[in-house]
């Protein structure tokens, strides 16, 4: 099932890149997609981690929220940069995470990194070492709103 | 006209990021600056393709994006492990 969905996504990607809809090229694309999946199967990379199709449903709910967070924090960081005094208060904090799966932790760590103002430096099993540009950013992360949302996202699969 | 402000801004970004790449002071600053340069070059490329009226060439920008990641990861992997293939830690004197 996962292989079929991987092959279909690869084929869609091929069509997007080529932009031609002649029978010959479409067949060539389909064969290439199947060949890639066959090779990937031998490499054993078509697993929940390499092609996490199960997540797409909950991702559609999580990403918009993450997008808003990114815009908000990017705006904050931009204000700090253009501020004449550069009011930064960098901090290294340890943030607890409650995800059970490795993929959930990856999503959380990457979400932290993706929002400007916070970067995951070391991603451990139960806690992350995070560098924050401002004390306020570190504190809002410690409140754990994003952590709860990622855990819910992870559990929704 | 539509693209002029964006192109000028991206060129300025490129120049500023280059300054950081020259100044360093550590390798990581340079790698960070070059990563940013890659992203900006990718955006600039996409905008330029629209400017020249061939929006379907955005594939090029995609290739850039992929290579940017590959390059950054290769530099960092090398810097951490001292080799691209297998893990063989090297002493710090050699790397500095």
């Amino acid at each position, binding site marked *: 099932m996962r292989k079929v969905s991987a092959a279909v996504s690869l084929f869609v990607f091929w069509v997007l890149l080529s932009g031609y809809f002649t029978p010959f090229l479409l067949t060539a694309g389909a064969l290439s997609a199947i060949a890639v999946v066959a090779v990937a199967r031998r490499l054993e990379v078509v697993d929940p981690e390499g092609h996490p199709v199960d997540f797409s449903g909950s991702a559609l709910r999580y990403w918009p929220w993450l997008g808003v967070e990114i815009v908000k924090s990017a705006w904050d960081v931009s204000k700090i940069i253009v501020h004449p005094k550069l009011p930064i208060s960098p901090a290294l904090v340890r943030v607890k995470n409650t995800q059970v799966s490795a993929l959930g932790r990856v999503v959380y760590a990457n979400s932290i990194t993706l929002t400007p103002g916070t970067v995951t430096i070391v991603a451990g099993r139960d806690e992350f070492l995070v560098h924050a540009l401002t004390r306020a950013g570190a504190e809002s992360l410690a409140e754990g709103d994003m952590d709860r949302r990622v855990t819910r996202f992870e559990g929704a699969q | 006209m539509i693209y*002029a402000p964006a192109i000028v801004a991206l060129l300025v970004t490129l120049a500023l990021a280059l300054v950081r790449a020259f100044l360093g002071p550590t390798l990581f600053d340079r790698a960070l600056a070059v990563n940013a340069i890659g992203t900006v070059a990718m955006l600039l490329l996409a905008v330029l393709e629209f400017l020249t009226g061939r929006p379907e060439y955005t594939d*090029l920008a995609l290739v850039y994006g992929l*290579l940017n990641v590959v390059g950054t990861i290769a530099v960092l992997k090398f810097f951490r492990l001292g080799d691209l293939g297998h893990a063989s830690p090297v002493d710090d004197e050699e790397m500095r």
Partner: protein
Amino acid sequence: MIETGAVAALLAMLAIVGVAIARIRNLFGVVVLSGAYSFIMATALAALDAADVAMTEAAVGAGISTVLLLGALHLVGSLEAKPARRPAWPLAVVIFTGLLVAYGTHGLPAFSDPQSPIHRHVAPRYLEDGPRETGVPNVVTAVLASYRGYDTLGETTVVFAAGIGVIALLRRRRRKDGEGGP
């Protein structure tokens, strides 16, 4: 207009990066900066409408040569030796060659001049009949893979052989390392 300006700005940045690469003594910095050079170069090429060359420059310059140069650095160490004497004579040669090349460009037809010889020989046929004769939508691919198919086959064979040679050489070195080391 804005396109010309953008290309000029990109080329100016290229020149600055070139000088910086020549001046920086830390070779890691040089490798990283040459990656930046490739990205800017490829953007300039794309702005000049050479999409395929830009693609190659990005793939070779920013992708594989970064990896290869890093592999080379692993063998030689990361600090460039100080030059023994001031390179006045080589500098003169380089400047002279540069001027010669700049002078030579005056003999070339203007950029993208449709009347220049290179655009009037076989190019019109490739452009007009290529899709019909070969059935390949992309003109560059049609020329490389169909009109010059044997040429391309030879080139890929050479590149493939070179690749195998490099792999064979590196393999051998690594095994020796394993015997000597822990």
